[in-house]
């Protein structure tokens, strides 16, 4: 059993009903992450994108999450209140299936870092610039149990044990050591 620890959970709450589709979040995100800071902007580099289809009343601000090397086995498509959303619209991954969340020139993946800064920003920039309040920021502390860190081999063995059972592993190890 590990110790109890507190961690800060940073959440951007997205109220899609309040989104006016202006994309100010994309502008300021890409400007903040430019080098030097604010020296340029380019929504194609933004780590937040608004999936926007005004004639169908679709407004979904999506944040860049983890990079994934391969796409999912299938795709999803949501229909909510009669509105059909793009394939994978709510997914945050920088994924081979789409051009979202990749540097336009190098193709390198982009990921939202909650505007880590020194001194720290009060709120991520996209939230600061969304004065229609579609994006709001919440921070809370959460108690988590710190897990005892396992070694790499142990993780691997545990997976094998789950699959084949511990006895079979021990047999195999014994057999392998006899061969030597």
């Amino acid at each position, binding site marked *: 059993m590990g110790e109890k620890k507190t961690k800060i959970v940073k959440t951007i709450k997205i109220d899609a009903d309040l989104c006016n589709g202006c994309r100010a979040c994309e502008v300021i995100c890409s400007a903040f992450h430019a080098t030097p800071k604010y020296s340029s902007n380019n929504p194609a580099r933004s780590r937040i994108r608004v999936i926007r289809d005004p004639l169908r*009343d679709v407004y979904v601000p999506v944040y860049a999450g983890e990079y994934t090397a391969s796409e999912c086995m299938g795709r999803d498509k949501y229909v909510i209140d009669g509105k059909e959303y793009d394939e994978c619209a709510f997914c945050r991954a920088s994924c081979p299936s789409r051009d979202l969340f990749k540097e336009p020139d190098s193709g390198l993946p982009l990921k939202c870092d909650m505007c880590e800064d020194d001194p720290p920003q009060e709120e991520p920039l996209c939230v600061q610039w969304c004065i229609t309040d579609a994006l709001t920021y919440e921070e809370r502390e959460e108690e988590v149990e710190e897990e005892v860190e396992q070694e790499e081999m142990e993780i691997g063995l545990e997976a094998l044990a789950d699959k084949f059972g511990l006895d079979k592993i021990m047999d195999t190890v014994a057999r392998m050591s006899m061969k030597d």
Partner: protein
Amino acid sequence: MRYAETGFNLEIDLTRGNIERVETDPRDTELYLGGLGTNAKILWDRVPPEVEPFSPENLLIFSAGLLCGTPATGCNRTIVSTISPQTELMAFSMMGGFWAPELKYAGYDKVIFRGKSPNLVYLWINNDKVEIRDASHLQGKGAIETAELIQDELNEPKAQVAAIGLAGENRIYYASIEQGRSSASRLGVGAVMGDKGIKAIAVRGTKDINVAEPAEFIELCNEVLEYIKFRNENPIPGVMTILKGLGSPQEMATHDEKWHTENFMWGNARVRRRDFWNEEIAKEWKETMESMQTRLISCYNCPMKCGATITPTGQPTYMMKCFSKLTYTMAAMSDLEFGFKIAGLAQEYGVDGYSTPQVMAFALELYENGILTDDDFPGMPSDNEGRFYWLLDRIVRREGIGDVLANGTYWAAQQIGKGAEEYAHNTIKKHEQLPLKLSMLNPVYFLMYSTGEKINITQIEGQFPQAPYPKREHREAFVKDWFQVPDEKFKQYFLDWEPRGENSNPYYPTVQMSCDIVDWQERMHYIDDALGMCSGLSSFPLKPPYHMHNYPKFISAGAGIEMDEDKLTQAAKRYRTLVRAINIRRGMRRKDEKPPEDHWKKRFPELEKELLDTYYKLKGWNNDGIPTKESLHELGLDYVSEDFVERGILSDDEGTLSEETSTETEKK
């Protein structure tokens, strides 16, 4: 390195199908800023006055403003410039939306079309790859429909598309260019686009826009955002609802239309319905609005929600903004539901929401008065609303009487004759105006209507309150935090302005004050149009976040051009004068500078003459409205005066021809 701008234009020769990427001269940016300013320079240099609007020699320029694509809030406008088929003068119509920033991200400041395509085409700009593509399959398609079809066939949902509908293809003199929630609709820019055979321009860009001084620039942007928040929380007291806040008038969020419906004119800008608004109508219109409207929406990088998505029963969804909410309703003496329905159709056809309803009401007035007869309207339904739908259809197809009406009230009246001219009573410089008919002459508005070359009052007015506050204490409260004034004297002008008595219209504001006020208001609009800023955050509303004091800093930090208030004033004056020069060269004179005869009931010819004389002088124009050699020289526009002298518009020695000779020339 170029800052804020990309430094490149696209030159498209439609006749030969040639595309070139041309680097621009940074000195022009310094002199004319960008957007409207540099558009005017190009039109002056390349479109001589002999060129007809529908000639291949006419240019059609789509320009992003200088600061479009930077983080400056609300800076998203496309300035479309050409020669207008309706006024035969320079047209500069503008649109917000998402197109201009996308063009900048693709790496261009302007797209300049010349020539004519032999068949209907569209332009596809995808960063460095630019193609002219066949559009024959899009012929006759609606403007909004076209945008969707193009996005689909390119598989580029993020492409921004500006397109014309059937009206543009058929060269209706008040055809618009539509782009999602926005349109460039005044002065027939859509007709020129159709004449050139361009159905649409689709653009997609994924490049950076740089600013010169990042930290300074972003701080300015943050101040603007903070002030917008402040203004949203602190509406201005004592003025009507739509003037309290920022943005273009919040027509999509406003239910109470008592003021518009009882003060603006109905039908062909003639009938005032003083007791129109009542509880029943208020309830009915509110229900219409709530049942058809889905969401309030914005342009690129702007928190103001001036537009809305509207879905009339049984019709496709479209996006509407501002006063087109009421123009069809009031022209047809109908209700809001009808207004929303026909406006959706009109937008697909791509026609101007101000001129179109008025042209139709004008036609029906001619019919009622026997100037047009049943023979002119074969098959027209007998019900009022049905007639408007029928007329709209004839106009955009140029069928029968529609072919005449398609040229607007002025030209239609000329063609119809039989006294029809009397009915085309609401135009300035041949272009239909808002249906306003008032009692007492307002000297400030007299000047704006007379001398405005954007030919739309909403593109000239702003900043200075439209009417005085009754009580001095309220006026004092108003001026207290009025830091936007370029000079303290404007506060005094307002403090002393009374609704009645000696210090009231038409003799107060005095002639000199009126000239100052108009000059300030106009200057702010011209700056907006060069930077690509929406007037809804700058020149139009009271106490806006952008003003004469922070604009120079925005230009310095954004574009890296050293700027102060004097230099900016001078630059704005330079290209404002150039716009006038283009029109003067095309024949515009003092005689053209007048509001509709019936705009005010009480007129004051002597005062009006003095107003115009004094304003011309302030602007550096002679008594015929022509910029003098001296003032042109001061603005570095000697090339204009040389041209004027060569054409006999100005004389070589004293700068201007004597009045006699000028009248002589006019008579020819």
